């Protein structure tokens, strides 16, 4: 069972629909118990980094952190990926999970923000399990004003006002800045890869 974590932010319906479509058993939940017992965890999210505060107050942060310790596969989408870093310029006082060092940054002033639309991913690690079977330079759908810089765990990069992390991956930890649930067949394939881990 995949737990789609409900922290009152982000488009949970879309993520749930996508898992239903690929016939993966999933549940939208705000219950730390359910999250703690899940086989896989998905943290969706569109919106403000500060919305992740709700995870702490609901006891979900601890549930996720301890599941990650037990090597339960985790997929963070958009803000759910940004939250894997230590912090974000969007809400400097809010602490991320900090599985990777660094902070999310705003796009440079010379490009329009938010970065909205279909852009290409440069898959930099051919061994990526998330991108298995996905052609290089595939188009995926983004909508965000803050971004994760290119870090050690980056497996795919996208160019918009300089390169940034389109996806991160290390062991059982995964994150996509783009929305696989909104990226047509490419996105569904990626979610399938996550389900089949």
């Amino acid at each position, binding site marked *: 069972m995949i737990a789609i974590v409900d922290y009152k*932010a982000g*488009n949970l*319906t*879309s993520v749930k*629909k*996508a898992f239903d*479509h690929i016939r993966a058993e999933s549940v939208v939940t705000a219950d730390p118990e359910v999250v703690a017992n899940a086989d896989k965890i998905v943290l969706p999210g*569109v*919106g*403000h980094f500060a919305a992740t505060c709700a995870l702490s107050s609901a006891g979900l942060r601890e549930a996720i952190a301890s599941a990650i310790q037990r090597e339960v596969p985790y997929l963070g989408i958009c803000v759910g990926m940004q939250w894997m870093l230590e912090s974000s310029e969007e809400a400097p006082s809010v602490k991320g999970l900090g599985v990777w060092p660094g902070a999310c940054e705003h796009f440079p002033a010379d490009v*329009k*923000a*938010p*970065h*909205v*639309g*279909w*852009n*290409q991913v440069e898959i930099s690690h051919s061994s990526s399990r998330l991108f298995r079977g996905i052609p290089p330079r595939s*188009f995926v*759908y983004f*909508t*965000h*004003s803050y971004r994760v810089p290119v870090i050690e765990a980056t497996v795919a990069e996208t*160019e*918009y006002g300089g390169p940034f992390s389109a996806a991160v991956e290390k062991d059982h930890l995964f994150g996509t800045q783009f929305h696989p*649930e*909104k*990226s*047509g*067949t490419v*996105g*569904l394939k990626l979610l399938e890869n996550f389900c089949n881990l």
Partner: protein
Amino acid sequence: MLTKRIIACLDVTAGRVVKGIKFLNLRDAGDPAELAASHSANGADEVVLLDIAATHENRETLVDTVRRTAKELFIPFTVGGGIRTLQNAREIFDAGADKVSINSAAIADPALITQIANRFGCQAAIVAIDAKRSNQSGKFEVYTHGGRKTTGRDAVEWAKEAEKRGAGEILLTSMDRDGTGKGFDCELTAAVGEAVRIPVIASGGAGGSDHFVEVFGEGHADAALAASIFHFGLSSFSDLKQQLQTAGIPVRYPC
């Protein structure tokens, strides 16, 4: 490179897709869920569903139509028409929309833009502007209620205010061009695009691929929306995108 988006619009009334000229003379164009699915399969980058009767008849957007349409759609999906409160917006998001588009309600209560943006994120709050060139001032004037009411407001100024209040995108329709097939109003699109930092979706007047080349070029649009040329099969997404690519405009093709 970030691509220019081609957006298929479904104007819906009473659960059916319709198309008119200058917001009048409606004719049936099919089932919204079926059309959305086929547009997505054929290469549309996004789908917008507008309940065109909602404001006028004081009805809420048909939540069931939204749910049915969203069910098998895995590209961005925007819904507009009749969204007057945060609660209305919530129902639409719960039914599976990714973004809501507000028009008359944003003019009547601009704080609604901020409420939606704070709650669902700026990316989910689209402000739709129906604009018409004023014969007297030469400026673009904002209309509401499906083009029936003039507001006396300047479209460029209103777009700037909408951005300040938290809009994530502007959906800009030229009432002069809507349904005519004579091309987008590039002047209007460029004027608004220069004034804001958020993406501008050009709408109204698409008749052929040249019009898209124009609006992405001289109109500086980030996305372009059309309805009838796609519903009635006058233009396929792949043909259109191929021609845009040839003209040097970045598009999601092949997809």
